[in-house]
């Protein structure tokens, strides 16, 4: 994440969470007055809030100053890797776990909106090494159409939390719970198609270390507790696994033509 992107992210984040942003002279400087909710979330001072709430005092929320340039004097330096930024990045998941949105269409288009279930996942491939990818799948809850890269498409559409006046939603045929199941099976089959060379290599390393361990304890029968503990540790270290972690999910009511190729998706 470049410094400018961090600045941009922070501005969006504090605006969206309702904090007041002071206009600043410098483009690398950001000054915000936190709301009560955000103060509680970011400032880690439960005693203060407990005291204020018990005594009925008037709370003074914190004002934070961030700088995204190392050369400025004022403010807390945030960069990719600074604990403050990661605290903020982490908090987004708690702030936005679930959503429901409607497509905002020009009034002359068809008023029927189709229901979609969208789930965002982070997929991690883990042994003694680890890598991740991100995955977003959408399921149309009437005809069962599945779309990979759902979130990217959503970001090109005009969406609103309130149903537009002239629109109505179609009734889903697939229940949400079974929709989640379909998406999981879709991801699972996609994962099974993938190359597993990384897992084979990890298993080789695992086997080699296990053989060494067995040789070390060869003379000891029955095996001591430490042997089993070491075995378990090797499993922890090497066993190849794929973790599909949830980021966030939502219900989306969209016009069917939004997903046709060549559709002018920026239509507003």
């Amino acid at each position: 994440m470049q410094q400018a992107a961090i600045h941009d992210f922070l501005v969006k984040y504090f605006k969206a969470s309702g904090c007041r942003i002071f206009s600043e002279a410098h483009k690398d400087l950001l000054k915000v007055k936190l709301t009560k909710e955000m103060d509680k979330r970011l400032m880690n001072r439960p005693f203060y809030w407990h005291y204020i709430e018990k005594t009925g005092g008037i709370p003074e929320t914190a004002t934070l100053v961030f700088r995204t340039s190392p050369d400025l004097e004022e403010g807390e330096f945030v960069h990719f890797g600074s604990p403050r930024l990661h605290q903020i990045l982490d908090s987004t998941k708690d702030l936005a776990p679930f959503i429901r949105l409607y497509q905002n269409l020009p009034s002359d288009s068809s008023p029927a909106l189709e229901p979609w279930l969208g789930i965002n996942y982070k997929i991690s491939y883990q042994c003694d090494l680890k890598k991740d990818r991100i995955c977003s799948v959408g399921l149309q809850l009437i005809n069962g159409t599945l779309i990979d890269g759902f979130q990217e498409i959503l970001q090109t559409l005009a969406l609103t939390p309130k149903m537009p006046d002239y629109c109505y939603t179609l009734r889903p045929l697939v229940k949400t719970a079974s929709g989640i199941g379909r998406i999981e099976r879709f991801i699972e089959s996609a994962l099974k198609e993938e190359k597993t060379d990384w897992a084979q290599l990890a298993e080789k390393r695992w086997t080699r270390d296990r053989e060494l361990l067995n040789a070390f304890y060869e003379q000891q029968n029955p095996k001591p507790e430490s042997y089993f503990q070491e075995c378990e540790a090797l499993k922890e270290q090497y066993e190849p696994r794929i973790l599909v972690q949830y980021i966030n999910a939502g219900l989306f009511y969209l016009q069917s033509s939004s997903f046709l190729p060549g559709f002018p998706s920026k239509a507003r």
Partner: protein
Amino acid sequence: MEPKIHFDRSWQESFLKRIAEDGPWAKPELFTLAWQAEKERLVPSFHGLIAPDRLPQLSLHPHQIETARTVIEDMHGKAILADEVGLGKTIEAGLIMKEYMIRGLAQKILILVPASLILQWVAELNAKFSIPAVPQRKSYVWDQCDIVVSSIDTAKREPHASLILKQSYDLVIIDEAHKLKNHKTKNYQFVRQLKKKFCLLLTATPIQNRLSEIFYLVSLLKPGYLGDADSFARLYKSGKTAVRNEKKLKTLVNQVMVRNRREDTGLRWPKRIIQSFEIPFSEEEFAFYRSLSDLRTAGVIQGFSLLTLQREACSSREAAFLTLNKMYRTLAQPQSEMLWQSIFNKLNAIRQNAKAEKTLELIRKINDKVIVFTEYRATQVYLQWFLKQHGIISVPYSGGFRRGKKDWMRTLFQNRAQVLIATEAGGEGINLQFASHLINYDLPWNPMRIEQRIGRIHRLGQESDVHIYNLATRGTVESHILNLLYNKIHLFEQVIGELDDILARIDLRDIDKQVEQIFEESDSEGELQIKLDNLSSVIRSEMDPAGEELHHAAGGDT
């Protein structure tokens, strides 16, 4: 093997509940930001390091980055870090830890270090790596905190031990791991029992010389890697200490150990510029110094006490007075009263301190930050007063200070005072590389202490050449040490860590005792010289054997 696929389903119930209750729903911008936050933090490849880019304020050296990569990718997170002193093993360990944390491979981490280094580790991990490590203070930290720094002596005792053994650690780091070479000790057994996925053992002392040590250290990391104890002995041991199949063993060990040497790192190391001064005592000082021998001649004190007094007299009359006064109170008899009085009179007659004058002269000439090392508290106080008289501000530093006070003194020295006066115990664990001048006001008898003193400023991060000034009073025990021992073994010119190696090889770790003994037992100057000479040639003969081999080989051609 098919990797197991695990779905996180913890969220599903609350999602369905939200739908049933028609909200509350997130704000659209935040929903997108949450997606972006995850996307930005993805680790797209199994290989390479992410951590260095996330630590823009830490300047890492290429060998440190390469070490972290090797440990993670080639050694699968189990390794001995055995860099020479001063190359930044702590940084390497921190970097590995950070990488594992970013990748989500390590959360629960235990760091076992000598008690005196706990706070330094905590401070470095927090400041340099933004790793929220905490020092162990209460027994509940084991459960509640993810990253704990503790001493092994605390950890192995109850109630801690059983709490720790219940934890499953992703990463265990052990500093000064050479202390674990004996597999029969409680420390070794304790570490053995820890549940650990990844493990780093840090040591600066090369361990190849004692075969079983390397075996037990490696077995801590990877049991069976060097076979079991019997097969190891059969394969590699010949006789008591000699090695067989050395090449094979080395190859094996090198796959679990990283040892960077100073010369391989390609770093420019600042030069050491050494100046030694033999300073003549003033007449009064010399008279006092000589009169001390009368105490021994009269049978009032033993050789050892005399030696102590003489060394103190070389430092300052204040230092000598404290000991002398103590002795007088316990040992004085009516018949020796005259003798004591004459000695105290001579002490009182001293009007100046030749070494202090020289120190002042040097400090003025250097006109930059200077660290003065002395062995004695009394001298430390005296010097501070003496410098103050001449308008030079100094701060004291002692090993006995609390951590906070140490940090404060260090900061004062960095920002305000020209001089830091440290007593011996201050030698360990403080980094002062912003200064490049060091005065050895008096010389300790253990050359390792000199190493530690110099190591405070001659380390990674030192940008100027390092100047070392040695003061010894002419014609005293001190000048013997300087001329007959230190200068002969080229002590001051040596690379840090080298002496440690040498002394370990010849089993001469308590060299100061040897020196003491030589002084005590020698009846004449000649005997003293011969004995010190022997000692220095033993040390010299062990120096740089590789270089000697080369020399022989080259000689063989002609």
